[in-house]
């Protein structure tokens, strides 16, 4: 059986086709869309929850999407140890669903930020980043208004102790500074995994850094790591 990637589509998702294109046409893996009303994800080897504005971000970003029928299947899928990657709004949905710890605040400076930033690999413990080096710097775009990751200080320590911080915002040279912290996230956090390491949420969009015309191809080593380590490609 060829391995298969599923991209979940909610009303208001808008990076679903970016993710689909990146997986199917750049990484050459069989990929299909899953509608938020579907409730079977059993033949999927990697689930991607893409970016966008599911349900118009009503109430809080991701708050309504987590009640979509497919999210019950996603909860089971995660419990069984299968991998889920949430990008941007996907990260917000995973937080609201309780599959990752913490919450998302409005960007510190309130502006919607859409630009390329640098992120540093902080932990290659999970299969998503296992093919990357700790300290490796990637140039990946962000595009969000609510990406200011928040968790209480003891939560930050827990994430650090368990090596759950996957990425931090950094300078081009990999330094973790306040200036590089694009949205005000606690401890410069750009992406985290759950305790076991089969769920990764990240605000930056690796699927938008896959081809020369996009200005950066640093999404390729990231997805190579994901697909190789999960034995999907």
């Amino acid at each position, binding site marked *: 059986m060829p391995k298969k990637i599923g991209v979940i589509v909610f009303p208001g998702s808008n990076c679903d086709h970016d993710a689909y294109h990146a997986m199917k046409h750049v990484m050459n893996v069989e990929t299909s869309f899953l509608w938020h009303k579907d409730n079977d994800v059993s033949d999927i080897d990697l689930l991607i929850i893409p970016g966008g504005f599911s349900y118009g971000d009503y*109430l809080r970003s991701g708050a309504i999407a987590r*009640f979509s029928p497919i999210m019950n299947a996603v909860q089971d899928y995660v419990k069984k140890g299968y991998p889920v990657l949430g990008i941007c709004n996907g990260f917000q949905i995973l*937080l*609201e669903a309780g599959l990752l710890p913490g*919450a998302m605040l*409005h960007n510190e400076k309130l502006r919607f930020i859409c630009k390329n930033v640098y992120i540093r690999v902080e932990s290659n413990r999970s299969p998503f980043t296992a093919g990357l080096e700790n300290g490796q710097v990637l140039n990946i775009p962000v595009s969000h208004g609510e990406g200011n990751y*928040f968790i*209480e200080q003891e939560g930050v320590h827990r994430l650090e102790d368990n090596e759950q911080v996957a990425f931090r915002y950094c300078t081009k040279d990999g330094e973790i500074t306040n200036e590089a912290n694009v949205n005000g996230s606690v401890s410069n956090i750009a992406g985290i995994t759950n305790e076991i390491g089969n769920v990764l949420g990240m605000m930056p969009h690796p699927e938008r850094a896959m081809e020369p015309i996009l200005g950066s191809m640093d999404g390729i080593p990231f997805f190579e790591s994901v697909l190789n380590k999960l034995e999907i490609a």
Partner: protein
Amino acid sequence: MTFMFKAKVNITLRNSILDPKGKAAHHALQNLGLISVKDVRIGKYIELNIDASSKEEAYKLAETACTKLLANEVMEDFQITIE
């Protein structure tokens, strides 16, 4: 027998959390000359019309609505008043 209650819900960012919208509004108020305003916190106000047999039952329902959906307790507090 049931009655119609109105739950008035106020949701605010926890005090320990910086409120960028409140800060921006505060700054604008300062520019207006309202310098006595020392701090601004912006939250949400939600009304729920609830069919329940008692005030206590209505409160419990509103509380469930808050903890399960309306508020995110990682960053927000809520306050319920039943009328």
